[in-house]
């Protein structure tokens, strides 16, 4: 501990703090410009200069560590003069675009000019006149407004580790750009844009659409993937204009991914139907819900009378909140008296490690996942940890990943070879093989080793179990995919498992139920079986159902099949909570109201027809959850992590046939960074960058097939012939190609197996 004085105030702080941090601790505000909490101090802007008694030099508060006995003065005439001059100097070249600049109203340059009282500039103004760069699909770059604080460069370097931009040139000719002024070659995460203090890096999805003082702010949790990032929704008149971040809020520390940041347009999409039922043309918005669903409830009751309760099933998608999922399960089991409650999430692996465990880890193994694509913010925390502490990182993946910038230990290969390597790794742990001796010793001797894996891949779970046994102290991190993938399972939306994972009577197996006609009525809350490799082959069999009810914000293929389709609210339009891959329960807040009903409204209405009163308000539902779900008994719904009763379920045996089919190329499912499921496909700006499914292929293979980037190629697999656009990428291993598996065309290809041998023809 160190004692010092700041503006006469006594402070007793940890010796590792800087003057800026110490001042913050005692409530003294020192202005900054180029400083950011999550980045190394830079000391470039000089705005935070302070006087230190006994030192003839002024020192930057952001970089200078505290010392015992220091006496610091943060404001004086001398400092006021300098701060004024610094802003004046910036205004020499900075164009006075405020009236047309999107940053107006939230601009640090404006704020500091105001704070320091800069009313005139004593020097001749020489505004720059470089053309604005529109080449990045999401980030508008106006180099004339840049103040060279370096935050964009530093965040792309220290946090994202892509190093897409840097300072180029020297002195007043310095500008921030890409290597050799080439096109932006980055992940479009937007971290740079989020830290730009002025209007130099702008949000192209938001561009010129609104002003900050018009918009309201609502904190919520992102409704896309399982990372569980805190987002700040900026909205006005029930339209979401922008998704911002808050460095001080949430497990994401103000970092977001490209879809979270730029993919919000689906919320405002004109594609969201207002009509309820295609066949009956009822306008759902504003209509009496009970009247709307009454005919369908009649049908439902009929089916129950004729065939029994176990002919009815409900499919719950991760789009639902915990509260809605809980009600859905209750409706199915207790109201409809059916055990056929389904979700497409596996219960074989439950959360163990959190982001904190990533931060504390001293050896990280990523098993068969492209983690920076599937769960970008989790990937980001791994990148930051490895960059900061240099801990060993080993990645197994069919093709190379972005993590190659941080570690040489990326082991790639077409699926069969890859699993041979994973086998070798396990054997090395057992002492039976020398191949990975050095690497495994790092994991064995680590105190906090971590394993990140794909809980959806059955084959991998066998290896996860082996690794757990062989690496002492290994923490497991099953990287779930959707915003409430974990929560819906916690709430018992799974055949045979109650809320809290106690066993109960199971219903029919879903596929069998549909195929053999045992299920006659299906209520689908959000799920789209057309996009599921496992169930898409049964998609047309759904026509056999006597009643199909689908709730979905969009008219998906599933919605089109429904007897009753109800457009419902998105995550921005309701309250509730999501549980992310850590098992962390976080609340979402309703930001806008577009007049759509929620899944909850529907469930409660249905229950009414059966004379059961289910709780409707979030508060009431939560009370019931604490009573019925032992895992959620004492939580505050504000960010705690649930403790799970088991980590892995069901002993597994090693599968012999990993890949099937025949052909010259190995196909595996890709994770997409730019899309999460199907909703983001309705965001035009995002879809401009990635619209149709792309087949990623190695340049050498592309040359052999005589196909160039952007051209189409025919894929032949298991009787299916389909044309796909090609994305030539040198990260791909030879003779190995990938496709996302959740498009209607691709889901059918992958319905045979996860890994396939396929043929490609020009």
């Amino acid at each position, binding site marked *: 501990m160190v004692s010092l004085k700041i503006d006469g105030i006594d402070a007793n702080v940890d010796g590792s703090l800087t003057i800026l941090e110490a001042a913050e601790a005692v409530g003294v505000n020192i202005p900054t410009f180029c400083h950011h909490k999550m980045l190394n101090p830079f*000391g470039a802007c*000089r705005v935070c200069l302070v006087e230190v008694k006994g030192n003839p030099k002024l020192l930057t508060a952001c*970089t200078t560590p505290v010392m015992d006995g220091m006496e610091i003065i943060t404001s004086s005439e001398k400092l006021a003069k300098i701060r004024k001059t*610094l802003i004046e100097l910036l205004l020499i*070249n900075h164009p006075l675009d405020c009236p047309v600049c999107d940053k107006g109203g939230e601009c640090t340059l404006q704020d500091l000019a105001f704070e320091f009282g800069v009313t005139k500039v004593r020097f001749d103004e020489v505004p720059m006149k470089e053309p604005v760069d529109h080449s990045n699909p999401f980030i508008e770059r106006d180099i004339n407004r840049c103040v060279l604080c370096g935050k964009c460069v530093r965040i792309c370097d220290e946090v994202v580790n892509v190093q897409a931009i840097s300072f180029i*040139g020297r*002195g007043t000719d310095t500008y921030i750009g890409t290597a050799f002024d080439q096109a932006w070659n980055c992940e479009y995460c937007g971290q740079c844009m989020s830290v730009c203090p002025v209007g130099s890096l702008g949000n192209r999805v938001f561009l010129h659409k609104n002003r900050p003082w018009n918009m309201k702010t609502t904190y919520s949790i992102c409704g896309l993937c399982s990372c569980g990032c805190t987002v700040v929704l900026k909205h006005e008149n029930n339209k979401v204009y922008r998704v911002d971040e808050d460095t001080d809020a949430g497990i994401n520390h103000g970092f977001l991914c490209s879809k979270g940041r730029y993919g919000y347009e689906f919320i405002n999409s004109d594609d969201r139907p207002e009509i309820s039922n295609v066949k009956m043309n009822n306008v759902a918005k504003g209509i009496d819900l009970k009247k709307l669903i009454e005919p369908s409830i009649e049908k439902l009751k009929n089916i129950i009378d004729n065939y029994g309760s176990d002919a009815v099933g409900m499919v719950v998608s991760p789009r639902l909140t915990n509260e809605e999922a809980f009600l859905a399960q209750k409706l199915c089991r207790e109201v409809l008296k059916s055990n056929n409650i389904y979700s497409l999430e596996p219960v074989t692996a439950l959360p163990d490690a959190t982001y904190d465990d990533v931060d504390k880890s001293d050896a990280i193994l990523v098993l068969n996942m492209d983690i920076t694509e599937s769960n970008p913010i989790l990937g980001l925390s791994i990148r930051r940890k490895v960059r900061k502490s240099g801990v060993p990182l080993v990645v197994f993946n069919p093709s190379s990943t972005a993590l190659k910038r941080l570690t040489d230990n990326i082991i790639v290969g077409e699926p069969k070879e890859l699993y041979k390597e994973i086998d070798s790794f396990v054997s090395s742990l057992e002492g039976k093989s020398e191949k990975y001796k050095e690497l495994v010793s790092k994991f064995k001797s680590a105190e906090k080793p971590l394993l990140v894996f794909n809980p959806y891949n059955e084959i991998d779970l066998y290896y996860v179990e082996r690794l757990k046994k062989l690496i002492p102290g290994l923490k497991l991190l099953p990287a779930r995919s959707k915003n409430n993938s974990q929560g819906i399972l916690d709430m018992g939306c799974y055949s045979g498992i109650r809320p809290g994972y106690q066993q109960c009577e199971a219903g029919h197996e879903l596929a069998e139920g549909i195929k053999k006609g045992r299920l006659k009525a299906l209520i689908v809350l959000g799920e789209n079986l057309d996009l599921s490799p496992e169930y898409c082959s049964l998609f047309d069999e759904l026509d056999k159902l006597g009643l199909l009810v689908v709730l979905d914000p969009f008219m998906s293929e599933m919605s089109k099949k429904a007897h009753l389709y109800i457009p419902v609210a998105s995550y921005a339009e309701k309250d509730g909570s999501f549980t992310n891959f850590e098992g962390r329960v976080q609340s979402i807040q309703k930001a806008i109201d577009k007049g759509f009903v929620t899944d909850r409204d529907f469930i409660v209405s249905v229950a009414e027809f059966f004379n059961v009163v289910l709780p409707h308000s979030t508060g009431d539902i939560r009370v019931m959850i604490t009573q019925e779900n032992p895992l959620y008994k004492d939580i505050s719904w504000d960010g705690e992590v649930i403790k799970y009763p088991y980590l892995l379920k069901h002993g597994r045996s090693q599968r012999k046939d990993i890949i099937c089919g025949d052909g010259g190329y190995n196909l595996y499912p890709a994770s997409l960074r730019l899309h999460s499921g199907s909703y983001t496909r309705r965001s035009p700006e995002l879809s401009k960058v990635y619209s149709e499914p792309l087949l990623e292929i190695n340049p050498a293979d592309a040359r052999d097939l005589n196909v160039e980037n952007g051209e189409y190629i025919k894929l032949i697999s298991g009787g299916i012939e389909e044309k796909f656009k090609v994305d030539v990428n040198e990260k791909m291993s030879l003779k190995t190609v990938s496709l996302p598996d959740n498009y209607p065309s691709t889901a059918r290809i992958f319905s045979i197996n996860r890994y396939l041998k396929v043929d490609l023809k020009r």
Partner: protein
Amino acid sequence: MTENSLGVHVCMGTAGVASGGREVMEAFNEELKKHGLAGDVKERDCKVKATGCRGLCARDVLVDIIIPGKDEVTYEHVTAEIVPLIVEQHIMNGDVVKKHAAKKDYYGFYELQKRYVLKDCGIIDPEDMDDYIGHGGYSAVKTVLNDMKPEDVIEEVKKSGIRGRGGAGFPAGLKWTFCSKSPGETKYLICNSDEGDPGAFMDRSVIEGNPHCVIEGMLIAAYAIGCNEGYIYCRAEYPLAIERVKKAMKDAEAGNYLGKNILGKDFDFTLHLKEGAGAFVCGEETALLASVEGERGMPRSRPPFPAVRGLWDKPSNINNVETIANFPLIINKGADWYNSIGTEKSKGTKIFALAGKIKNAGLVEVPMGITLKELIYNVGGGIPNRRKFKAVQLGGPSGGCLPESLLDTPIDFDSLQSTGAIMGSGGVVVMDETNCMVNVAKFFLSFTQKESCGKCIPCRIGTKAMLDILERITVGEGREGDIDLLENLAEEIKISSLCGLGQTAPNPVLTTIKYFREEYEEHIKNRKCPARECADLIDFVVDDDRCTKCGACFRVCPTGAIEWEKKMVAKIDLSKCVKCRECIVHCPFNAID
């Protein structure tokens, strides 16, 4: 070379090479062969040796003829054409060629100098390690490794009182203790040979003339501090220095002076050479470290200082080349001897590079405490072309201009600092009445402005704002209040900049305003340049009264704009005049306004 052999030492420092040193050497080799003197079988053999800079670069190519038993003779301005004469007349027949021999003033050049650090420059072959050893080289390392503990070496250097020669003047021994005390096994020693000041060539001459003394100095420092790895950071614009230091490093390694178990002792030191990439800012120690790490050469905030967290976050000690070259001297001759030279607070000697309007332009080494007047007039030979002294710029773009009234200032760190100038790394540029002080400030500021790394606001934009004001003043667009604006801005830039570049860039402006304010006022109020250097403020009209009708201007005008005949006053045709100022520069009577 045997005792009986002759020596022909040809200056092959960069100035020597530029003046034709290679051709002179070839000529000597050829002539000596003709007379049967080259080679080894003769009774009297003769070796032609390339040596480093001996100082009076203005007289290059300099050649020393050493005949045992006779006085050493130096020839100046030697060209390949006069070599046969020298060989024939002097070497073969012992008769000095008086016409080309150095005059008395050549020896006067050396009178007030104390060439201790430069003692072997000009004598030994910089590419021959044995020559260095033969002249006492690497004996200090032996002393240190055999007889002294690291703490003893630090004490000795502290006792010597030597202060950094790179410009800051921080006590070297004290700096060593910071790094030595920092915890950690891995420590780095870095030699700063970036020498970015335009017109400075002190470090260059030391490395080109005697690279081994730098290696020896580094060994001493490394041993004292506890560094096992070191870097010489040399600017890429010194290809000869780089070539010579590379060879020296190779030879030193072969001779067990570098590498593992040096001289059989339990001391390892691996030395690397890192070339600069053309940035003045990389002479600043933290920017230099960034450059060695492969990063963009931008300075970092201090604290933490390099002695605590330096190269790759390990404790590092950075010393300037000249400082390092002093270490063998201090060990060999002792701290007490070193103390006897110089003033109370500034010990030892300093190498200066004399340039500008001075007769004896070249490299000099003088004891601290010598006055500016002695340096310029006695050592430097005074102002040529019958012009008057106006100002002397010390310390390059980071330094200041001092007027005639301050010529009695002794040259030591503190006396100079109190005038507003700094000692700097040793660049001394002398100016006469044809130099405009506003233009001088503009010149130095335009350099620092271009070299600014761009990281911090005050230096990046502030120096540009100052430069814009100076440019307006020099084209006659100065405004009321400009001088105060310059002064205020300059003060603020000084105290708010991140590194030494920004902190000292305003010095030329501040000192010229302090000592030559009237000149600024002339430019602004009357739109006139008294020194007639700012072309936009010159009328290019010959004053009838002052013109002596000598015709010098007529002869140098490149466009024929001057009308002149014998016994006529010259007249300038303004329609043809391109304002190149050659006439003004060459008029001995300052007759053109």
